[in-house]
C-alpha cells in the first residue's frame, strides 16, 4: 500500500509523526490526523465488515455520522468497541482493531452470509425462524448472534475516572463552525456568558476543510483567530471534543466532553470524560448539515466516499482520495471538491451530474457528464469501476475513488428532542427544525442556509439578537468579504436510481438496502415507524444519521406521496452514543452512594463489631469474641447477657425529630393515631403513625422535653420519610399550626443500655437519681453527666423488655461516653450488643418492626386497637380506618409461633397452614413475619400474621416453607415470649 499523503498542505503537523497499528500492522500518521485520515493516508481502505452480510467496508464520512469505519481501540478495561475512526484523534501508540470478521478482515468466513442474502432480507427474523420453535433458541439465534454484530465490549472494569458538571450560561452555541463562531463572538463581545461546544478537537467545523478566504484570511486561520479571541474572553467557555447530545426541559442541554480520549495514557487524577449539564437561557443550534449518500449498486464499496468528506481529507489532512476519482453529485458542492482536487494536481476521471444543466460555472478539466447517474460500483474490497447510465446507455469507467453528494440535510436532531416534529421543505428538499422552538434557535446550515458568507451572517445576526434579548448591547459582527464561497444550491432530488443491479445500500450500518424498503411497503409496513422496525433501517448505533432521509425518500416514492407526508421517526437523545462511564460519573465503587457513619462507629469498631449495611448506615450486627464458632454463638451470648446483666447498643441511627412551637402537641395529636395532647413534660410515649389509608406507617417514642418541645424518634428505615411526612402535615395540611420541625438525627449519639444492671451502671455517669421513683418507666428528661461536664437526654424506654434506658449525648461526645459506660459497666458484665441481638430481644418481647409494619396492617392487626383514639376529631388515617374490611374479624392478626419440637426450626416468610391442611393457596392462614432462635425459650420463636390469630393461641398448626419444601409442626401462642406482665420494665 502506497502513501496517499500529499507532499504539503493540510492542518497536520508533519514534525510530529505518530506511530500506530491497525490489526497489528504498524502505520504512521501525524499530529492532527484522525484515525480515519491516517488510515487513508496509509492507503488503507478496507477497515471493517458489515453487520449482516459481512461486506467489505471503508470510510464513508469524515465525521460523527460514520456508519462503516467502526473499530475497537484500547485494551483491557480501556477497550472501546464501535469507535468511529472518523472521530478518533490519532495518538502515538494507538492500537485499532477491525470488527465483525473471522478469521481476518481480508478473509472473512461470515461473508458467506452474502450468499444467504435472499433469506436475510427485511423481516427475516420474523419469517425465517417461525418453526420449528426449538430451532430458534438452539440453532438460529446462536448462529445469528455469532455472525452478526459489531464490536465486543470488555468484561474488565474501566480503570479511568469520569465526572459530571453543571454549567450555566446566557447563550449556548452548539457547534463551532462558521455559524457558531460568528454567533458566539457577536454575543460574547457584548458581555454575555457564552458556552461554545464542538465535537472536534479544534474549533472551526467546516472552516477547517474550506479553501475559501474571509477578509483575506484562510478559513482555518479565521477559525483559529475566532477561537483564540473566544478563549481569551473571561465570559466564554470554549469546550472542544464536546458533543451536545440532548436538549431537555428547563432548557438544559446534556453534553459529553472527551477530556482524555485522545491520549494513550490518561492522567489518573483527571477524568477521561466529563458529562455536562448546561443550563442555558438561550441556545443556538449551529450543528451544520449532513451530506446525503446516493443509493446505487455497490455504494458501500471501499473507495466510495461522501464528497464533503473527501474534500475534508484532502484539504484538512492532505490525503488524496485515489489516482482516478469520479464525482457523482446532484448539487454544486461536488464542484467545490473538483476545484480543490484539481488545484492539488489530482486527476478527476468524470463528474456525473443528473441535472440537465448542472455545473454551469465549472471551469475545470474533468469530463462533465450531465443527465447521468451512477448505477453500480464494482470492486469488492476496493473500488475499481463504476457504471454510468445516460440517455439509456451504460458506460463503465475505471476509477478508484468516487465522491457522492445527494444534497444536504440540516442536522436538527437536538431541535426535535423535546417532542417537536421536523417540517419538510420542498424548496430546500430537506426536513427543517420544528417551526416554533422556545430557547433554541437553529442557525446557518442547520437551518437550511447554504454558503459560508450566508452562514457567518446568520450566526452573527442570531447570536447578537439572542444576546440583545437578554439585555446585552450586542450587534452582529461583520466579518468582511468571503472569496471562493461555493453555496450549494438545493439538490435535485434523486431518491431511487433506475437501472441499479447490485445491492444499493440505504442504511450502511444495518445492511438495509433499497429492495428491503420496497419489500416493507409491499408487505404493508410502509409507515415510517413500521418500516424502521421491519427493515431495521436507522436502528444501528448511528441511528440513521446518513440513511434516514434516503429511507424516507424511498418510502415516499414507493407510496407515491411526499417525504413530508411520510414524516420522520422520533428523534431522541443521545445524538451520538454516550459511554456508561460518563453517565455514571464518579458514582460507582465506594462513591456509588454516600455512607452514613454513626458517631459510635469507632467505638463499635474497637470492640470488634461485624457491620451490616442498613440503608446508607453501617450498623454493628454482632460483636464476636475469640473462640466463638459462628455468629449465632455471639448473638446468643449477647442476648443472654442483656437478660442477665446489661448490654450497650448503638441506636444513633433512629430518626430523631425535634418538634417545637405552641401547636407542637396538636400536630403530634393529628399525626399519631393515639393521644399526645396530654403527654406530661418529662415523659415518653409510644406512638403509632398511620397512613391516610388507615394502615400503620411507622412507630416510635415521642417525649415531651418542655411544654412546647418534643423529641420524636422514628425507625431507622423510615427516618427520612417520616420527616418529610411531618413537614407535609405542618406545611401542606395544617399550615395554620405554629410548629417548628428540625431533624436532629445527627445531633445525638444515642445508645441503649438494657438489662437488670443497667440502672446501676448508668448511675455511675448520670448525676441525677435514677431510682425507680425518681426516674420511673417512661421518664424522659435532660440529665447532667459526669458531674456536670456534659448534658444529655435520658429516656427510660425499652425495646428488649428489660429495665432499659436510651441515653442521647451530643454526637462528638458519643464515642467517649460509650467507652466510659463500657468501662463503668465492666464489673457488672456490660458488653456491647448488635442489631441481631436487638432483634432477638424484641421478638422475645413481641415488639413489632417493619417486618410486621409492612403496609398491610392496621393497629388492630398488631393488637394496638385500643390505642387508637376514639375521641380525637381527626388524625391521619382516622377516616379510612373505619372501613369495613379493615375491621373484618378474619384479618391476619399478630400472633406468636413456636415449633412443637424445639430441635426444629422455621424461617420468616414461611406460611401457616391449619394442622393437616394441604399446602394450597386456599388453605393459607398467614405467614411468619419475624423469627429467631431465642436463647431464653431454647428454640426458634416467631411472630406471625395469621387469620383470627388473636383467638387461636394454643392451636397446633403447620409452618410451611414452600421454597424449601419444609413442614414444621408448630403451635400458635401469645406474641410475647418474655415477661408478659412487664415486671422487668418497671423494676
Amino acid at each position: 500500500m502506497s502513501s496517499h499523503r500529499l507532499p504539503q498542505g493540510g492542518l497536520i503537523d508533519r514534525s510530529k509523526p505518530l506511530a500506530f497499528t491497525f490489526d497489528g500492522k504498524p502505520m504512521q500518521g501525524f499530529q492532527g490526523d484522525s484515525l480515519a485520515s491516517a488510515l487513508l493516508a496509509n492507503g488503507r481502505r478496507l477497515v471493517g465488515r458489515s453487520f449482516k452480510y459481512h461486506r467489505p467496508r471503508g470510510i464513508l464520512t469524515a465525521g460523527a455520522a460514520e456508519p462503516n469505519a467502526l473499530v475497537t481501540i484500547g485494551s483491557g478495561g480501556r477497550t472501546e468497541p464501535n469507535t468511529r475512526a472518523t472521530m478518533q484523534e490519532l495518538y502515538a501508540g494507538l492500537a485499532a482493531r477491525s470488527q465483525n470478521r473471522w478469521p481476518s478482515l481480508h478473509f472473512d468466513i461470515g461473508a458467506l452470509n452474502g450468499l444467504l442474502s435472499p433469506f436475510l432480507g427485511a423481516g427475516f427474523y420474523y419469517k425465517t425462524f417461525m418453526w420449528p420453535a426449538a430451532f430458534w433458541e438452539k440453532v438460529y439465534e446462536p448462529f445469528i448472534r455469532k455472525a452478526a454484530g459489531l464490536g465486543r465490549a470488555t468484561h474488565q472494569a474501566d480503570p479511568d475516572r469520569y465526572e459530571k458538571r453543571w454549567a450555566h450560561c446566557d447563550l449556548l452555541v452548539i457547534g463551532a463552525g462558521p455559524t457558531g463562531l460568528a454567533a458566539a463572538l457577536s454575543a460574547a463581545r457584548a458581555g454575555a456568558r457564552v458556552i461554545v461546544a464542538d465535537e472536534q478537537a479544534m474549533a472551526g467545523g467546516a472552516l477547517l476543510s474550506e479553501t475559501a478566504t474571509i477578509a483575506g484570511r484562510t478559513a482555518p486561520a479565521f477559525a483559529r483567530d475566532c477561537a483564540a479571541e473566544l478563549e481569551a474572553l473571561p465570559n466564554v467557555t470554549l469546550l472542544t471534543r464536546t458533543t451536545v447530545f440532548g436538549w431537555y426541559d428547563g432548557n438544559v442541554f446534556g453534553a459529553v466532553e472527551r477530556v482524555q480520549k485522545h491520549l494513550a495514557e490518561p492522567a489518573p487524577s483527571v477524568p477521561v470524560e466529563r458529562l455536562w449539564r448546561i443550563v442555558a437561557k438561550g441556545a443556538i443550534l449551529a450543528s451544520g448539515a449532513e451530506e446525503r449518500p446516493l443509493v446505487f449498486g455497490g455504494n458501500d464499496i471501499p473507495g466510495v466516499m461522501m464528497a464533503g468528506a473527501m474534500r475534508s481529507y484532502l484539504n484538512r489532512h492532505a490525503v488524496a482520495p485515489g489516482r482516478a476519482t469520479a464525482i457523482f453529485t446532484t448539487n454544486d458542492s461536488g464542484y467545490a471538491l473538483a476545484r480543490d482536487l484539481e488545484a492539488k494536481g489530482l486527476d478527476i476521471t468524470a463528474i456525473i451530474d443528473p441535472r440537465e444543466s448542472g455545473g454551469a460555472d465549472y471551469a475545470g478539466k474533468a469530463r462533465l457528464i450531465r443527465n447521468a447517474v451512477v448505477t453500480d460500483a464494482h470492486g469488492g474490497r476496493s473500488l475499481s469501476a463504476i457504471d454510468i447510465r445516460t440517455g439509456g446507455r451504460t458506460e463503465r469507467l475505471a476509477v478508484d475513488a468516487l465522491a457522492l453528494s445527494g444534497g444536504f440535510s440540516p442536522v436538527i436532531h437536538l431541535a426535535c428532542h423535546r417532542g417537536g416534529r421536523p417540517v419538510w421543505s420542498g424548496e430546500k428538499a430537506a426536513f427543517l427544525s420544528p417551526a416554533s422552538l422556545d430557547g433554541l434557535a437553529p442557525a446557518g446550515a442547520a437551518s437550511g442556509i447554504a454558503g459560508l458568507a450566508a452562514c457567518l451572517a446568520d450566526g452573527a445576526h442570531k447570536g447578537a439578537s439572542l444576546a440583545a434579548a437578554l439585555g446585552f448591547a450586542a450587534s452582529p459582527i461583520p466579518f468582511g468579504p468571503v472569496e471562493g464561497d461555493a453555496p450549494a444550491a438545493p439538490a435535485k432530488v434523486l431518491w431511487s436510481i433506475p437501472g441499479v443491479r447490485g445491492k444499493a445500500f440505504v442504511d450502511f450500518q444495518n445492511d438495509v438496502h433499497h429492495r428491503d424498503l420496497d419489500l416493507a411497503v409491499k408487505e404493508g409496513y410502509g409507515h415510517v415507524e413500521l418500516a424502521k422496525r421491519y427493515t431495521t433501517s436507522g436502528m444501528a448505533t448511528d441511528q440513521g444519521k446518513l440513511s434516514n432521509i434516503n429511507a424516507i425518500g424511498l418510502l415516499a416514492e414507493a407510496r407515491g406521496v411526499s417525504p413530508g407526508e411520510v414524516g420522520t421517526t422520533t428523534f431522541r437523545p443521545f445524538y451520538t452514543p454516550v459511554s456508561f462511564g460518563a453517565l455514571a460519573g464518579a458514582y460507582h465503587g465506594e462513591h456509588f452512594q454516600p455512607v452514613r457513619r454513626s458517631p459510635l462507629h469507632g467505638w463499635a469498631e474497637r470492640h470488634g463489631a461485624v457491620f451490616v449495611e442498613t440503608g446508607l448506615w453501617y450498623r454493628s450486627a454482632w460483636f464476636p469474641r475469640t473462640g466463638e464458632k459462628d455468629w449465632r454463638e455471639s448473638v446468643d451470648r449477647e442476648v443472654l447477657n442483656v437478660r442477665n446483666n446489661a448490654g450497650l447498643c448503638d441506636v444513633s441511627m433512629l430518626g430523631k425529630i425535634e418538634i417545637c412551637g405552641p401547636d407542637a402537641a396538636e400536630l403530634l395529636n393529628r399525626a399519631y393515631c393515639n393521644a399526645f395532647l396530654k403527654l406530661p413534660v418529662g415523659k415518653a410515649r409510644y406512638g403509632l403513625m398511620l397512613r391516610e389509608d388507615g394502615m400503620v406507617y411507622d412507630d416510635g417514642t415521642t417525649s415531651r422535653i418542655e411544654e412546647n418541645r418534643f423529641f420524636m424518634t422514628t425507625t431507622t428505615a423510615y427516618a427520612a420519610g417520616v420527616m418529610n411526612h411531618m413537614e407535609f402535615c405542618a406545611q401542606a395540611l395544617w399550615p395554620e399550626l405554629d410548629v417548628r420541625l428540625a431533624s436532629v438525627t445527627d445531633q445525638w449519639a444515642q445508645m441503649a443500655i438494657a438489662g437488670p444492671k443497667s440502672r446501676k451502671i448508668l448511675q455511675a455517669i448520670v448525676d441525677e437519681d435514677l431510682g425507680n421513683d425518681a426516674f420511673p418507666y417512661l421518664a424522659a428528661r435532660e440529665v447532667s453527666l459526669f458531674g456536670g461536664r456534659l448534658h444529655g437526654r435520658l429516656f427510660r424506654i425499652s425495646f428488649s423488655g428489660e429495665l432499659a434506658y436510651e441515653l442521647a449525648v451530643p454526637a462528638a461526645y458519643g464515642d467517649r461516653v460509650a467507652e466510659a459506660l463500657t468501662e463503668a459497666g465492666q464489673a457488672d458484665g456490660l458488653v456491647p450488643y448488635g442489631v441481631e441481638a436487638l432483634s432477638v430481644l424484641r421478638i422475645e418481647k413481641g415488639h413489632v418492626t417493619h417486618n410486621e409494619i409492612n403496609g398491610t396492617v392496621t393497629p388492630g392487626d398488631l393488637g394496638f386497637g385500643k390505642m387508637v383514639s376514639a375521641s380525637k376529631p381527626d388524625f391521619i388515617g382516622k377516616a379510612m380506618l373505619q372501613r369495613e374490611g379493615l375491621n373484618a374479624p378474619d384479618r391476619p392478626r399478630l400472633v406468636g409461633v413456636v415449633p412443637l419440637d424445639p430441635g426444629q426450626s422455621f424461617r420468616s416468610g414461611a406460611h401457616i397452614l391449619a394442622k393437616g391442611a394441604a399446602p394450597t393457596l386456599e388453605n393459607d392462614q398467614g405467614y411468619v413475619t419475624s423469627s429467631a432462635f431465642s436463647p431464653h425459650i431454647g428454640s426458634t420463636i416467631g411472630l406471625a400474621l395469621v387469620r383470627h390469630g388473636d383467638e387461636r393461641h394454643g392451636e397446633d398448626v403447620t409452618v410451611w416453607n414452600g421454597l424449601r419444601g419444609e413442614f414444621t409442626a408448630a403451635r400458635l401462642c401469645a406474641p410475647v415470649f418474655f415477661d408478659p406482665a412487664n415486671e422487668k420494665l418497671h423494676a
Partner: protein
Amino acid sequence: MASLVPCPHCGPRPKEEFTIKGAALPRPAPTADPAEWFDYVYLRDNPRGSYAEYWHHTAGCRRWLVVSRDTITHQVAACRDAAAQGHAA
C-alpha cells in the same frame, strides 16, 4: 437529564433535589363522606396535560410545593409554597 423545578424559595433546581408525592388534592374534612375519602386516597386523574402535584424540596429548603406541570412537555407553569394559600390546592 434535567427537569428544573422553579422553587419559589431557592430558584430553579434539578428534580433530584425533590421528592414527589403525587396529585395536590384538598384533604377532605374528617367527617366527610367515605366516598370522598376514597377518592382522595385512591383515585387519580392521570391527565395528559396540566397536573398539579406536591413536590417536596427535600435537598433544598425542605418546603412542600405545589408544582403545576405539563405531563407531556414537563413544562412547569407555576410553582408555589404549599402553605401559601392555606389549605391544599
